[in-house]
Structures are given as structure tokens and as C-alpha cells.
């Protein structure tokens, strides 16, 4: 249930002395495969809206490989990778660009073409859920980072609350509290948006302090 990648691999420190300096290329590859999905979620939570997630993720992969020897304890890789991901996301403001997204294309084509491999109703249902999900994600982007990040990390399939707490280096109870508040805030944000004309929809929620 706690699968975090379609290519699960063991490393995460097991079988090593805790040092990262002696990892082979194969072990580094496996380490990256194990963590790249949630790292992508961290970037998603912090990057500028028009930045390219794939580009930033490649930058993080490069920095990880180059800096891995500086990590003293491989068991601390989650907070370490998160720091790299956040710093990379923040630097993205200087090199924003818009690129066509393969996923969007594929989804749009699927939605338009209807039902190859599934019923039209199922495709429409999925498209509707995806649209709702994107709206929730838009609303999540307006939350203070302390609430946005755990919410998006928790939406990574297979990532438990405990793992989110490890990445954020926070107690699980704090993560739980922030998730509850984040969900309430985006629900209220959407309710407010629905209550006013689209042209008057407002910007970000004011930066409230974390729990």
C-alpha cells in the first residue's frame, strides 16, 4: 500500500553504512526512482504557475547526483531532497517558460475522442473528476505553503501521512492538523468563488501562519 513508484526499489539506506558517498550509479538510479514522484509533488507545491515541472525535476535530479556525496546520512534523504526541490522551484522564477504538456494533450484527446478502451460515460466521469481536481489544485495554490505542501504531498498515491511527515520533518499530528485546515480553506475558497461572478474572482488567500 505504501508504494511510491511503479518501479519500487529498496535502497533508502538499507544495506549501507548510512553514507551516501559509496553508492553506485545503479543505486543512485534506484534512489531517484523511489523518490522522484513525491519530489515532483514538492516542486508542484512551490513552483511558479507557468514553470515547467519536468525541467525543474531534471534540475533536481542533476543536483541530487552532484551533491549526494555531501549527504552524511542517507536516511535523511527526504528532507534533503525536499530542500533541493524547494530551492530549485524558487529559482524557477528567473527562467519561466510555457511548454505544451503531453499529459494535457493526451487527456484532451481522450476526452474528445470518447471511448477507446472505456465507455463514454466513464471517460466523461474521469474528465469531470480531473476538472474538479484541477480546480482544487488551483485553490490549493493560493494557500500558504505550510498548508499547500502537505495537501499536495498527501495527494500523491501511495504516500502516507507518516511519509509526508518525514519529508516535511514535522510530527504526524501537525501534518494532520494542517491537512484538516488546508481542506477546509480550499473548500471555503471554492465556495466563495462560486458565490461571486467569474470576472471578480480574487487572488491568493492571505498568508496565514502555520499550525
Amino acid at each position, binding site marked *: 500500500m505504501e508504494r511510491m513508484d511503479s518501479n519500487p526499489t529498496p535502497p533508502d539506506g538499507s544495506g549501507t553504512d548510512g553514507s551516501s558517498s559509496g553508492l553506485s550509479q545503479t543505486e543512485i*538510479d534506484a*534512489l531517484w*526512482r523511489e523518490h522522484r514522484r513525491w519530489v515532483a509533488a514538492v516542486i508542484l507545491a512551490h513552483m511558479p504557475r507557468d514553470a515547467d515541472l519536468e525541467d525543474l525535476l531534471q534540475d533536481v535530479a542533476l543536483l541530487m*547526483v552532484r551533491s549526494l556525496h555531501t549527504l552524511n546520512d542517507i536516511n535523511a534523504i527526504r528532507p534533503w531532497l525536499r530542500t533541493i526541490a524547494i530551492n530549485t522551484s524558487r529559482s524557477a522564477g528567473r527562467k519561466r517558460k510555457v511548454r505544451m504538456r503531453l*499529459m494535457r494533450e*493526451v487527456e484532451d484527446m481522450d476526452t474528445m475522442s470518447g471511448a477507446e478502451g472505456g465507455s463514454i460515460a466513464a471517460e466523461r466521469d474521469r474528465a469531470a*473528476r*480531473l476538472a474538479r*481536481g484541477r480546480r482544487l489544485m488551483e485553490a490549493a495554490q493560493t494557500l500558504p505553503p505550510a498548508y499547500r505542501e502537505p495537501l499536495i504531498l498527501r*495527494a500523491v498515491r501511495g504516500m502516507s501521512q507518516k511519509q509526508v511527515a518525514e519529508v516535511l520533518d514535522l510530527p504526524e499530528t501537525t501534518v494532520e492538523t494542517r491537512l484538516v485546515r488546508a481542506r477546509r480553506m480550499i473548500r471555503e475558497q471554492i465556495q466563495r468563488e462560486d458565490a461571486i461572478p467569474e470576472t471578480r474572482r480574487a487572488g491568493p488567500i492571505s498568508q496565514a501562519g502555520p499550525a
Partner: protein
Amino acid sequence: MTEPMESNEDILISRIIDGHARADDLRQLSTLALADSSVWDRLAEADADREALCLAVESEIAVAQGVAAPMRDTEAPAGPYRFVGWTGWMGWAAAAAVVFAWTVSSRGPVSNGTALPGAGIQNVSLTADDALAQYIKASKAEDRFIKELPKVMVESHLAADGRSTEVTYLRQFVEKATVNDLYELSTDEHGRPGAVRVNSPIGTQSVLY
């Protein structure tokens, strides 16, 4: 907007949709629902939103499947190394494919004379993986196969069994071939499509794609 204080209902619903609810949490929510049955609607809505957000986030982070860890500097070419994702070379690869496809169709298969295993046999029962493995082996024997690029996932969703994940992905090979003529698809002055020889030295030229 000010930071909201979470209600007991919010906490209970959040625990339930996150799969962390204890029996006492369920009892408490049931008690709340006795006084206000719309609690169940809010639970269903929260769970649907959680699922929708998962779908959207997974859709966004699916690109991660195509991002590999670069080689370490000691094993990589000098200078800053950057993994080239499929999007980086898609343009010229597509162009090369057009040229090469035309050449092959006009000249017939390029071969150094090595017979492909199973060539000419129509009714061989092979799995797709077996057939591909045979192809790669033969392609290597012809000095044509260079490498397989990392798979790129383009979509994933819950499989029909409700437990596993069905993924759609691109699988790509880098190969080379030696051809005598290169053509590209173009149009004449009337806009009619046709083949135009690429202006390059006549003789042997390698085309990679």
C-alpha cells in the same frame, strides 16, 4: 482570509478519508449525523474531492516517470550534463523518421545481409516481449541498435480490478542505419507533396534516429 479553526467534524472527516479513522471516530461522526444528516453528504463530498485532487496531482507529476537520474560526473561526458527528455529530441527525431521512412519505403529494408531470426516464418507463437527481444538481438547483430531510452509514462489510472494501476507509456529505441540516399517530404510549387533528395554528399551517410 483568516486561518480557520478546524471543527471536530472536519477532523473526523479528514481522518476517515485519509484512512486513519479509529472506531471511536466513526462513532463520533455517526453521533453528529444523528443531529444533522447532511454530515454524510459532506463526508462523501470530501472523499470525492480527495480523489479528484489525487487525480489532478498524479496527472501533473506523471512526468516524473520520464525523468531519470543523470550519470555522475565521473561517468558522464565533461561539462554540465543534462538528461535529455523525450521532448528535447522529439522534433529532430520526427524529422529523421520522415526522411528515413521514405528512404526505406523506396529502397526496401536496409540490411547487411544477416538473416533475421525467424525471417519469413509467419506462424511463430511468440509473446510480444520475446519478439522484441529477438528484434533487439538481431538489431544488435546488424550494428543497428544503440540503446533503449527510459520509458516515458503518458498516463496512469486505476485498472479495472480496482487495485493495480494501468499505465500508458512511450517506449523508444535509438538505432542507426547506413543509407545511400536521403529524401525528405516536401511540396512543389503547386503544393503537391513529393520526395526531394537532401542536398548532401552522394555516397554513404549515416542517419541516426
